[in-house]
């Protein structure tokens, strides 16, 4: 662990872990949530609502398969409606999980140890929600597998010069690596649950998932190498994923899309919304399961600071977009800016500026950074703002392009909303199951944070 960082933290700020814990109590506290704590009525109500929302999504998708994408609000010129807005929003949310688990690991930020597990779970579920949208928006979703290069009787291959193909590879690689990273991190904790569980079925299931982990020093040595290498691989990967998503737009010539600021500002926006989602999940979870000693004020503050920093990068991106609209002298770019501020979608654009730039500035105030309620509300505002940003990018750019004859309007239908809200339900249902079935905080990494874990030569 990073000595200097830890002592600095101990001296002036909330600690990374509450005082008085031992290897045994940390283990018992986290594993008891899974093994012995009975599911509360609140859990059943919450899971039930999320499950019903998931069913609503399946119903909307089923009807889509029956009728076709005519049930959505998409029409030419706006061929990319909610499906792409939601895809970009969800995949962006996923980015914070990888940032916490991989990039903060490489930077030796030990405070990540108590939030990386559920942040990675969040990544996985967010990517699962994101993956639904491109598959169902292709028009003939039963042929979505044509995107993969497989030998076929038509003898043709995918078009590798298209950013949409890059996206297929980037997102599927991201989903695979995230799932493996998460699973590898779980193996030692599965062994802990195997040894603690009393129910025979639980012993068998956790035992199988632990793969016979026994904590041998040789195994740990290889394990740590592999974990570090995976983190090193996931770091450029996560930056590439939202970069490639932004290429979907930036490579096109539509005014408002064709700009080189897109990759960095998409990545910053992704981390911005992802941390907001981490806080929206962490704040109720730490309260309900009494984990304030593990997810301390320090974690909330650090997450708030990351949101503040990435929010400013996003604001810079908006500023540059506006500046280039004026400075480039391109009348279509200038019109895009004017249209955002005064056009038919002015209300979403101004709401976006309020949600993403103005309201989050209150995070400069230390008192609000450490208040869970305030952070929860601000995170909600940021998530709305980031969703609006994608709506502005997709819809507002498409609805006014070069020729007035190809102008149009986009009105989402109830099926659009049902699908979108349904994916939120699916995401929450997965989170509800996750907190009950798997240790939501990495037990073995928490042990390494304790003072007694330190060894002198």
């Amino acid at each position, binding site marked *: 662990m990073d000595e200097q960082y830890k002592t600095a933290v101990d001296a002036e700020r909330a600690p990374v872990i509450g005082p008085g814990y*031992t*290897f045994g109590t940390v*283990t018992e506290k986290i594993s008891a949530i899974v093994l012995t704590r009975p599911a509360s009525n609140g859990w059943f109500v919450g899971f039930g609502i999320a499950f019903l929302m998931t069913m609503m999504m399946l119903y909307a998708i089923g009807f889509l398969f029956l009728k076709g994408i005519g049930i959505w609000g998409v029409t030419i010129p706006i061929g990319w409606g909610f499906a792409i807005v939601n895809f970009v929003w969800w995949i962006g949310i996923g980015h914070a999980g990888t940032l916490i688990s991989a990039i903060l690991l490489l930077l030796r930020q030990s405070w990540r140890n108590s939030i990386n597990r559920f942040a990675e779970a969040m990544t996985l579920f967010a990517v699962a929600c994101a993956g639904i949208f491109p598959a169902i928006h292709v028009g003939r979703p039963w042929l979505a597998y044509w995107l993969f*290069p497989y030998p076929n009787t038509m*003898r*043709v*291959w*995918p*078009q*590798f*010069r298209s*950013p949409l*193909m*890059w996206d297929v*590879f*980037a997102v599927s*690689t991201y989903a*695979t*690596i995230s799932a*493996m990273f998460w*699973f*590898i991190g779980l193996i*030692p904790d599965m062994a*802990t649950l195997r*040894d*603690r569980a009393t129910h025979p079925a639980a012993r068998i299931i956790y*035992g*199988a998932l632990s*793969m*016979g*982990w*026994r*904590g*041998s*020093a*040789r*195994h*740990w*040595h*290889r*394990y*740590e*190498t*592999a974990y570090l*290498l*995976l983190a090193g*691989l*996931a770091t450029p*990967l996560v930056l*590439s994923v939202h970069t*490639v998503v932004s*290429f979907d737009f930036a490579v096109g010539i539509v005014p408002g899309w064709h700009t080189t600021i897109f990759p960095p500002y998409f990545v910053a926006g992704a981390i911005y919304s992802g941390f907001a989602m981490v806080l929206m999940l962490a704040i109720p979870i730490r309260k309900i399961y009494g984990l304030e000693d593990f997810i301390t004020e320090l974690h909330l503050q650090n997450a708030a600071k990351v949101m503040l920093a990435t929010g400013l990068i996003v604001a810079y991106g908006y500023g540059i977009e506006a500046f280039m609209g004026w400075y480039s002298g391109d009348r279509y770019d200038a019109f895009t800016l004017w249209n955002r501020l005064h056009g038919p979608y002015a209300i979403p654009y101004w709401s976006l500026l309020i949600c993403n730039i103005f309201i989050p500035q209150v995070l400069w105030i230390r008192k609000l950074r450490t208040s869970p309620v305030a952070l929860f509300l601000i995170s909600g505002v940021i998530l709305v703002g980031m969703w609006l940003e994608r709506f502005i990018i997709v819809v507002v750019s498409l609805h006014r392009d070069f020729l007035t004859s190809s102008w149009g309007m986009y009105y989402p239908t109830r099926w659009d909303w049902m699908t979108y809200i349904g994916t939120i339900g699916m995401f929450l249902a997965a989170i509800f199951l996750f907190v009950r079935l798997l240790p939501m905080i990495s037990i*073995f*990494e928490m*042990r390494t944070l304790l003072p*007694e*874990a*330190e*060894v002198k*030569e």
Partner: protein
Amino acid sequence: MKRESTYGIMAEFTSAQALVDAARLTHQAGYQKIDAYSPFPIEGLAEEIGFHYNEVPLVVLIGGIIGGLTGYLMQYWMSAVDYPLNIGGKPYHSWPAFIVITFEMTILFAGISAVFGMLALNGLPMPYHPVFNVPRFSSASKDRFFLIVFSSDPKFNPASTRQFLEGLAPRSISEVPS
């Protein structure tokens, strides 16, 4: 091969420091085939039992190179050899456009190699292992630290090894049946 009736002798310790010290002393006493078990990774413990290098980085490097080559050659072969198709007048072999997928395939193959390479080198999954026969060993995933001297060690002797381990002030000593 002669089958030993004992798999090894195991000593239990209550702190990470005690385990590292015991591992060092045991290795210095000339025992080669030993292993240590801990509920979390302890820096330097593997070195104390004489395990310095692992092959995971090499596996990952090879996986990454194979992935990168696969990604690039796949695109080249499909776009320029097997079915050249003129799309927007772009060259069949549009190498700048192939970089993204080449990169993603490098990461994918390297990551898969890291995970499966680590598991394979560790001999996992291995649902049964003799050390699980020691009842106290279930604490190895919680708050206890174990050191084992395998019976395959040339210096292993049931009586003297046990005596040696007792000299390290462990919390308990158990014989691991094979």
